[in-house]
């Protein structure tokens, strides 16, 4: 069972990584507009202009 000494810290580290990712996304304002985000994927502004 000695392997636990390594496995548990590794598991905790990976979990903490997820937590940090969430806190970062919160800080960068990704939860400010939950309605708008789902519509923005339909916005094709970033495609080259086909009319041209």
């Amino acid at each position, binding site marked *: 069972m000695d392997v636990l*000494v390594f496995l548990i810290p590794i598991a905790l580290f990976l979990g*903490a990584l997820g937590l940090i990712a969430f806190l970062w996304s919160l800080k960068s304002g990704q939860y400010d507009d939950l309605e*708008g985000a789902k519509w*923005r994927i339909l*916005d094709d*502004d970033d495609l080259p202009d086909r009319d041209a």
Partner: protein
Amino acid sequence: MTVHQRDWQAFVTPGKDGGVHMDLAVDGITCAACMGEIERGLKRLPGIRTARVNLTSQRLAVDWAEDLTGADEIVAELARLGYTAHPFDPASQKERQDKTGKELLRSLAVAGFAGMNIMLLSVSVWSGNATDITPETRDFFHWISALIALPTVAYAGRPFIRSAVNALAAGRLNMDVPIVIGVVLAVALSVIQTMQHQHHAYFESAVMLLFFLLVGRYLDHNMRGRTRSFAENIAALKAEVAARIGPDGTVREVPLSKVATGDLVLVSGGERVPVDGVVETGISEIDQSLVTGESVLVPVKPGQRVYAGTLNGAGALQVRVEAASGATLLDEVNRLLETASQAKSKYVRIADRAARLYAPLVHGAAALTFLGWLMAGLGWQPALVISISVLIITCPCALGLAVPAVQVVASGQLFRCGVLLNSGDAIERLSDVDTILFDKTGTLTLAEPELCTAIDPEDETIALAGRLALASRHPLSAALVKATGALKPLPDVSEVSGSGLETTVEGVVLKLGSALFCGASSEQIERVLQDNPGASLLAIRLGEQPVRLLPFRQSLRPDARRVVESLKDEGYRLEILSGDTVPSVALCAGTLGIEEWQAGMKPAQKIARLEALQKEGRKVLMVGDGLNDAPALAGAHVSLSPVSAVHLSQAAADAVFLGDKLQPVADALRLSKKARAAIEQNLWISALYNVIAVPVAVAGFVTPLMAAVAMSASSLAVTANALKLRWGESRPSSPIDEPRRGQRQPARG
């Protein structure tokens, strides 16, 4: 609507990298197309760095380089795209970042992460205890759990610790006190157990408890945040600005917070007076219904006092801003407001009342358990362990969720009915109402006047008068335009300030205005007023024909009668307290079938009536909109105010309702009754849980596994019971969406 320029500098705040920032409430954003259109359109302007629409809050945030584009160009571009936008006054927008919400979400994330990991370790220990875990491995797992749990409780527990400390410092008990005691004891006991190499530790109970409670808190906060931001948008769209006249005579529009005592403010015809002050120049008529409740227009001239929230008639006024001083109406209202709100703050929320009962009971039971085991011959330490396990299992997880869960669901439903809550405990207070006091003008009736008599659509004179009325901003003119449906204005209209309009049609003079202006006889005026008590009159005279008088009055809200009837059927005692004159209140009360009414009430009299009713032991709901209602709104057991109300009243009321209908009042009462029942059921579920769990804990049989399962089960039970409120509630058509539907479609492409 206004001709003068707005002083944009007052709305702009410094942004990043030397740029400037502005927040705007935009009317009519409904879909993704609007969002893309606005953002693309604005980015075409030079110097725009970011333009981002928030679809949830219907707001637009723009950052730009100030030297390249002006704020007025941004609003002009939005107008060109087909959207009306109003900037937020930076001073009134205290919480742009929503700090509390983010703190709760961060705590929630930390508690969730810690809870999952500790649970993982705990489940291993529980299964190991049943099989053959070595003591070393168990200690190792417990120590890691402690390592995660201690910082988590310190971090994620802050909202509860803060609130508990504040309550204790004020000498009160609230729900957070037993929560904090339970969590702290659970963690401390677990650390001691770990040091002594015991089989059980309660880290996961403490952290999971915090996690569940934070979920409740966050949902509650989010719901109220949504209401608040919606209310702020309405305030910004109502354009709370004043046209200030500078020392050089220029007129610029500034937010109200930038207007100081002694400033001179221009009030154009048909606009609301933005400030309290004294008229310097100009004559006009003022609709004071929001302030005094009187529906008749009052003439004003230089030297007279006007109040914020009143509607100016035709003439332009220059008003010198005054701080309220001495025995004015506003001072009286403010003084009454203060004493009235003190009386209300004595109300104790259900959750805190439950905590007052619950905390001594549970803590007493724990102490008795300790003494009991001690006397039964157990050592002091195992006795202490058992008594703390009593505290842990009774830790008011369900109790802490019982009330907020219901409040979240109920306030969401109220939001859909068009009722926005100002205070969180309004729901529980609404539910014990048995008497409803209505103000008349602006509450039972709509704020705008309407023609009382039917008009003949073939009548040429009235049709001409309607076209003439297009030239004026006077509220009665606007009502005449609405009644006649006039579209084409007449040429060459001259306005006699404070009296009326005049023009020539095919060589004949047409006059529209006050009865005196058109030369009506006093008998004629009296006759019309007898038929239409409390009406305001508009006179028409075509050439030498006899004068025609049209009576106008604020009409009742379209569903007022039906709602009043249904409220009476449900056994509420209804009463009208109005500042208006006797005949018009009598007429209104007669139409609605309300037997008890009083007219000509001053703010102090309204309060006195309220207190008399409350002394009789009645729980009073006050519904009102005027400045004269504000003290009564603050003093009543609970109060509602329409969104058209003056600022002070809206702030004093517990909830605000939207739209032209009275139905939200009835909806609020009905929903709050259901919510109250659900709250009580939830409290019973929690009590039942404790009745079962406490004896087991007292007997010393509680293991951490049992605590975790019982706690989660009781939390889920109360949450499910709260969600039950939604069942069978057909979604009413939302008055919030109505004005948007069918509105102008912005030009695409």
